């Protein structure tokens, strides 16, 4: 009796025609019909303050078939794709995927946003996010303390483990230290590895964030997988959590079993190096806190390894932030938000920085170039003294230099 009353109410108010059409391609998208409007999503959303329509209200508009209002409001373009709403939704609704689907629907029906259109054109022409010439992907190497001959050998090297540097680390000088540190550590510990260099293309995530759909990534996926195989690779080593997530989750869906490559983030790869005692460290005590990148922690469930790495470094005292691990708050740098609304992106980063500062840590460490950039920008604006580093830089800086051989 109770149930039939609910059903009649649903029939009277809701129009699921739009919902069914919109979410047909989203796994478990149908669950949106069970949304109870609790507001956990809006309360969790780092970007909600910058949205004209909050996430909770967006879901209701979908349920009610209010397509025009929904698309005109454009709130879904403010989403950082951090996925905290999905994690906290008591109904288990894939909310972040629905946000991405809304972007796709907007792009398909109203055409791409101007800034996203430019991004798509740049990626199509130059295969990176800045529009640089492909050769510039190796500029970060120029400051390695290696001879010209050693640099050339490194560039030409074939190897089973191939580093996929990612657009941000390759092209944004603020984070060059990340691949530089990785290279120094790998060389000093005699790990065998090769670089993709200018043969590397963007992983394709920005196209997904731009509402162009996952099929738009297929060309990038095919090229990158082939490029790694041409280098003789069986393992792809990542410093960027977004590239990691895309390679690990999306490439196999797009390419199927033909991909046949192991994909690892450096925090997983280096556990072995550190535990084998290959690195000797300086031992002064230092307090650090660790920011889990959304694509690595919440979305890929890699939260344990970076902490294990930290705990294996002598003198390191880890002070966790209030929200950490899979509950970690976003830095504001995801979902193409920095391109669309840089001020909101920075405000989100400032909130995360405040949490980090409250721990009393001297270092705010992370394992992501984009998190590092946004958090550094927040620290600069707030005149904060906390040092924002990627874990790789932190490890490389605390390594004892070895006499002779390759210099770290």
């Amino acid at each position, binding site marked *: 009796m109770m149930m039939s009353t609910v059903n009649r109410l649903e029939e009277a108010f809701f129009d699921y025609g739009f919902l069914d059409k919109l979410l047909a391609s989203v796994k478990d998208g149908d669950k949106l019909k069970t949304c109870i409007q609790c507001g956990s999503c809006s309360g969790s959303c780092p970007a909600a303050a910058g949205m004209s329509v909050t996430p909770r209200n967006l879901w209701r508009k979908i349920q009610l078939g209010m397509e025009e209002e929904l698309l005109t409001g454009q709130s879904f373009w403010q989403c950082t794709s951090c996925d905290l709403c999905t994690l906290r939704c008591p109904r288990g609704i894939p909310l972040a995927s629905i946000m991405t689907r809304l972007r796709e629907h907007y792009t398909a029906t109203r055409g791409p946003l101007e800034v996203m259109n430019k991004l798509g054109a740049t990626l199509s022409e130059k295969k990176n996010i800045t529009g640089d010439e492909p050769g510039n992907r190796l500029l970060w190497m120029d400051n390695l303390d290696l001879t010209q001959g050693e640099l050339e050998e490194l560039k030409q090297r074939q190897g089973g483990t191939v580093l996929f540097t990612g657009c941000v680390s390759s*092209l944004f000088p603020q984070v060059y230290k990340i691949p530089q540190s990785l290279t120094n550590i790998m060389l000093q510990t005699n790990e065998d590895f090769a670089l993709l260099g200018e043969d590397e293309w963007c992983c394709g995530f920005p196209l997904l964030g731009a509402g162009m759909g996952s099929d738009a990534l297929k060309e990038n996926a095919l090229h990158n997988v082939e490029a790694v195989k041409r280098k003789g690779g069986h393992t792809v080593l990542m410093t960027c959590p977004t590239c990691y997530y895309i390679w690990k989750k999306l490439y196999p869906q797009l390419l199927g079993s033909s991909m046949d490559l192991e994909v690892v983030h450096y925090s997983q790869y280096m556990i072995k190096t550190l535990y084998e005692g290959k690195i000797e460290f300086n031992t002064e005590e230092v307090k650090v806190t660790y920011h889990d990148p959304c694509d690595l922690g919440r979305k890929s469930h890699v939260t344990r390894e970076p902490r294990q790495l930290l705990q294996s470094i002598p003198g390191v005292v880890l002070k966790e932030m209030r929200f950490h691990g899979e509950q970690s708050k976003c830095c504001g740098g995801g979902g193409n938000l920095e391109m669309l609304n840089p001020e909101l992106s920075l405000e989100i980063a400032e909130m995360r920085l405040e949490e980090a500062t409250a721990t009393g840590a001297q270092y705010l460490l992370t394992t992501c170039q984009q998190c590092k950039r946004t958090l550094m920008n927040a620290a600069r604006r707030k005149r904060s003294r906390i040092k924002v580093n990627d874990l790789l830089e932190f490890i490389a800086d605390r390594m004892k230099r070895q006499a002779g051989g390759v210099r770290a």
Partner: protein
Amino acid sequence: MEILGYKFEEGLFYDSDHDWARDDGEVITVGVTDFFQKTAGEIIFIEIPRVGRVVEKGQPYSSIESGKWVGRLKAPVNGDIVAVNGELDACPYLLNDSPYDEGWIIKIKPADKGELKELYNASDRLEEFKTFLAVEDEKIKAGKKA
């Protein structure tokens, strides 16, 4: 000397990538112009190159990031880097505040100092330089150049 609202120094040489070069005898000191810093906006990071690096004319020797832009700095002449301005690591804003003085970037021991003559200068190529700047300024205003 002021051209189109941008400051330039008369004794310097200028290339078409908006670098300046100063003849300091044995070495050539290099930086970026007032036009460059105004166009880039607040510079938040510069990758300081290694002393000893060989630089090629027209090729990138450093990368730079402002709040709105990422760009490459190109060498105005061929040679070896013999000194770098370490102050810029902690204070990249010197490029904005003092582009021709405290914001110098590198000193190059030139392979051929005669290459300076290929650059714009105030004594015999001023009109040509003004024409070049007018075109560049127009591109900025039209939003065709970052």
